[in-house]
Structures are given as C-alpha cells and as structure tokens.
C-alpha cells in the first residue's frame, strides 16, 4: 500500500509503530502533489514548511511528546490566513497578501503537529459551487465520468480541498462551509466532510464571506479522519465573539457507529419534484443502512425548506457586501489608481479589477437588499424566515435525533454546464437550510451515479451533536463500503 493511500488513522498507527517517518509521509505527499499539478488544487505549495514541520514531528515522535496530528500531511484552504504564507481567498484582490498572523483553526492544526503542504484553491471568497470563480484558475476534479473525457468540477467552494484529498495529495484538508461548501464538494469527489455547529470552530483569521454562516470544518477520506481533525479544529476562542464556550469531546474516541435507540428523520420537503432517480434510490438505501445499524426512521416536515435558498441569497450577499468593503486598496492587496485619480477613483478601479464577476454580482445583490427602502422587505424578512427555518428543525428534532438527506441534487457536472448563476445557486438546495440554522451536518460518500461518479448523503444533527452526526456517518460508511477512487 502506498503511503498516500493511508487514512489519517492509519498514518497515526504507522508513525507510532515507526513503520515510516513523518518525513517519509511528507515526501510521498509532496511528490504526489507535484505530479498532480494539473488539477490546480493548490494556489501555493509550501514544501519547505512541510519538510521542516515533518522533521519537527519526527523529533516530537522520538521524544514521545508528539501532538495528536503529528506528521499528518494536510492542506489548508486559502481562506485561512497563514502567517508568512500568501493568503488570497482565491481572489486577485488579495494577490501577494502575506498575513502577519495565523488563523486560530490552522494554528490549532499545526499546533497538533499537522504538516502543511500548501494553500488550497477555492472559489473566490468562497462564492461558488464549482470552483470556477477562483482567480487562480479552476480546480479540476480527479474524477471522470465513465466513457467521457470531459473535465469535471470538484464542487465548491472548497474544491481545492476536495480534489487534493480525493487525489491523495493530502490526507486531510480544512474547508469552510457557508451554504454547503464542505459538504457539496465532498459529495462530488467521494470523500467525507463535516461542517460543525456554528461557533464550534473559531472564525478568527478566516477571511470572512458571510459571518453568520461561515464555519470551518475538516474534509478527509474517512469519517474517523474527519473526527480526528475536527477534535483539533474546534474549541472556544475569546477572539471570536460568536465562538461557543463549550467543551470539545474527543470525537474519534467516541465514534461507535452504533445507532440503536436513535431515530432518523426524513424531511419530506427534500423530495423535490424531478429528483434524480439514482439519488432518490440512494437516499432510500441510506435509510435502510441506518435501520440496519439500529435506528428507527420517521418522516418529518421542514415546511419552510423552499424558502431557505432565497433567504440565503439575501443574507449571505448582504453580509458579504459589507465584509468585502475592506478590500479597498488602502492597507493591503491590489491597488489600482487611474492616472490623476482621487481616492474614490482608486476604490472603484481597485475593486473593479480585483473582484471577479460572481463576487461583484453578490456584492451588488447584497448592497441592493440593504439599501434604503429595501432593508426590511429583504434583509429583515430573510432573517425572520431564517428564524422559521431554525424552528422547523427544532420541531423536527422533537421527533428524531438526526436527519438524512442527499447532499447535492446531482453528481459532479462539467465545467460551464451551469453558466446561469441561478442554476448554480440551486446546487445548494439540500445544504443551505442547515447552514441557516447553524446545525452540524456532514456528507459521506454512499454510492455512484450511473456514470460512475460519487454521490454523498448528508446527515444533519442537533446543535452540538457532531458526535451523533459522525456516528451516523460511520454507519453509512461501513454499510456503503465505498471504495471507488478516481
């Protein structure tokens, strides 16, 4: 077995047993990374940092004081600010930006001994579901449909993370999820990814897209690996006012996959008209697997589901329009000053040149919905609907412990297939409601489309019940026996 095929859990065992060193692990992954440059998964590769961190991990392992992730090669989504390493959020406006600080989450992972191989490509400012909006070129999925040579999207916005994990360039990666940006790409490339409860992972040092929705989480090739990474990523951070001051369990140690006594809800509103038959069947199959693991399944109702996407496309752009105001060419990043131009000219020219079309579109929508006369009709109404959506979940969770749904309405598509923004937005139909409610949710690979492309199932839990979500994920992982690889 190649070192790059190991799971994180497997690497931990091998490192502990001295079967191989962290340096050997890093070397194997660095060379895989080099060979897979065609995927464009990385914006910046950091082999020197990786080599040094691997050596440090080896020394710590030898001393016996290694952190829980010592020597594990990971990639960091370029939305996380990394000290002394360029961070762009996939945008031209941040080209060359070298943070003088380390985000809390990436700092925790590196503090646990993880080895950073580089910064992963993504949709610009995490706005996208296909990785086509990155200013640093699109990320190509390592997957191909059967009998087709068309290049496929890896999903988004954590598309670089998804592609790198699936292609075995890294053992795990950080993602961020605002409306599905961990779960949808995980589903598209056949890996696992969990968005924890809003507030579990600190947002400090993560370039903001939509503050009330953004949440970091891990992406990896097994549920256990997600649990291992998640334990290190979570935790209260006094620098983030929305951080939750609650204990972090050892998610991996608590994993059982045992669902006896659990009730799984099936939200009837997720059975969309014209739903893909394979996905509908897979969903049924997933419910059967969970019953096999001891769970009971019931139908539940989330009546405001159909309003989740429009509410999301008010709230997220509104917050983004304000969050992205700081990219003005004054203190960092791109500056474009037209000859003889004043400050206002500089702002307009800088932002026109620095932002891509999707980011501009969302800033425009956000600016519009917050502007005088529209605020209540759009933004306040959306936040009221959001309350109703959260209440739907609360009521559903009176009848069940977890929800099972498909992750995405389709398998990965080819570049350019969803040129219409609205069609692209509809990709997030299953992931957005739980984002609006701040709930933990994960995608686990469950099967293949008729074309041989991965399809994921989504598990949604009560606030702070990541453990329950991971257990159900493990039950599906065991039952599905998903071994397909790109």
């Amino acid at each position, binding site marked *: 077995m190649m070192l790059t095929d190991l799971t994180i859990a497997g690497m931990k065992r091998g490192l502990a047993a001295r079967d191989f060193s962290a340096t050997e692990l890093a070397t194997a992954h660095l060379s895989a990374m080099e060979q897979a440059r065609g995927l464009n998964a990385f914006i910046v590769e950091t082999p020197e940092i990786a080599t040094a961190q691997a050596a440090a991990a080896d020394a710590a392992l030898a001393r016996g004081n290694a952190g829980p992730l010592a020597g594990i090669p990971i990639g960091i989504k370029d939305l996380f600010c990394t000290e002394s390493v360029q961070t762009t959020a996939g945008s031209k406006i941040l080209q060359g930006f070298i943070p003088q600080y380390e985000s809390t989450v990436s700092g925790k992972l590196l503090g646990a001994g993880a080895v950073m191989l580089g910064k992963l490509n993504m949709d610009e400012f995490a706005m996208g579901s296909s990785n086509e909006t990155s200013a640093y070129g699109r990320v190509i999925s390592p997957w191909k449909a059967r009998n087709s040579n068309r290049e496929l999207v890896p999903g988004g916005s954590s598309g670089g993370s998804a592609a790198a994990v699936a292609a075995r360039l890294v053992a795990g990666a950080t993602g961020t999820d605002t409306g599905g940006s961990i779960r949808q790409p995980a589903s598209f490339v056949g890996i696992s990814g969990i968005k924890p409860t809003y507030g579990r992972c600190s947002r400090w040092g993560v370039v903001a897209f939509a503050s009330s929705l953004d949440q970091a989480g891990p992406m990896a090739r097994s549920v256990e690996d997600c649990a291992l990474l998640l334990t290190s990523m979570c935790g209260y951070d006094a620098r983030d006012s*929305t951080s939750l001051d609650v204990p972090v369990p050892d998610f991996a140690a608590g994993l059982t996959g045992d669902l006896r006594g659990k009730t799984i809800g099936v939200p009837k509103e997720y059975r969309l008209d014209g739903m893909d038959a394979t996905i509908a069947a897979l969903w049924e199959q997933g419910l059967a697997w969970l019953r096999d693991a001891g769970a009971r399944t019931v139908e539940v109702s989330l009546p405001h589901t159909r309003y989740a996407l*429009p509410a999301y496309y008010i709230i997220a752009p509104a917050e983004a329009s304000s969050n992205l105001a700081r990219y003005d060419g004054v203190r960092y990043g791109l500056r474009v000053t037209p000859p003889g131009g004043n400050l206002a000219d500089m702002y307009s020219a800088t932002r026109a040149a620095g932002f891509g079309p999707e980011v501009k579109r969302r800033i425009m929508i956000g600016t519009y919905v917050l*502007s005088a006369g529209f605020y209540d009709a759009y933004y306040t109404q959306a936040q009221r609907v959001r309350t109703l959506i959260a209440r739907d979940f609360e009521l559903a969770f009176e009848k069940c412990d977890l929800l099972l749904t498909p992750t995405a309405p389709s398998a990965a598509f080819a570049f350019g297939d969803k040129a219409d923004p609205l069609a692209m937005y509809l990709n997030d139909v299953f992931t957005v409601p739980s984002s609006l409610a701040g709930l933990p949710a994960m995608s686990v690979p469950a099967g293949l489309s008729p074309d041989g492309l991965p399809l994921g199932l989504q598990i949604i839990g009560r606030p702070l019940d990541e453990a329950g979500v991971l257990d159900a994920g493990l039950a599906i992982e065991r039952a599905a026996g998903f071994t397909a690889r790109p």
Partner: protein
Amino acid sequence: MSVTPETVLKIARLARIGIADSEVAPLAAELSTILGWIEQLGEVDTQGVAPMTAVIPNHLAWRADVVTDGGVQAKVLANAPDATSGFFAVPKVIE
C-alpha cells in the same frame, strides 16, 4: 422585480465597484432575475416572528479593559501598497 440600468449604476457606486458601460445592461438583467427569484420570500407570513439574532443561542462575552495589542506598526503596514513615514498613503482626499 426589474432592475433598471440607473439602479445598477447607483448600486455599483455605493459598492465602489467601477463598471463599464457594456456591463450595465447584462448586470441589470441578471440582477432582475436573481432578485425576482428572491422575492418569493415575500409570500412567507412572518408576522410576530423575530428576526434571527444569534444562530446558536450564545451570550456576548465582554473583554476586560486592558491593553493587550497594538505596538505592531510594522505588521500593520507590512502589506500596504503605499506606506510613508508610518502612514498609509492614498490619493488625495478632498473634503
């Protein structure tokens, strides 16, 4: 909802995003479609429903009033496109 070219220009100016004349019409059409779709939210009866303030119930923690930061001028200016004598420099502002 139909977004006029004037509205596009107004929004672009508020957002400080320069747009070329050729971009105005397509943007107007695109925004009209998206906003039209968003408007279905108006159907929801939200009477008596409070807008969400905290996604997960949480309490705002207060910091103690101590100086724990600052004194990092070099870090603050490290990425500046134009820094002079400890200041950020920008094209002249006329009040």
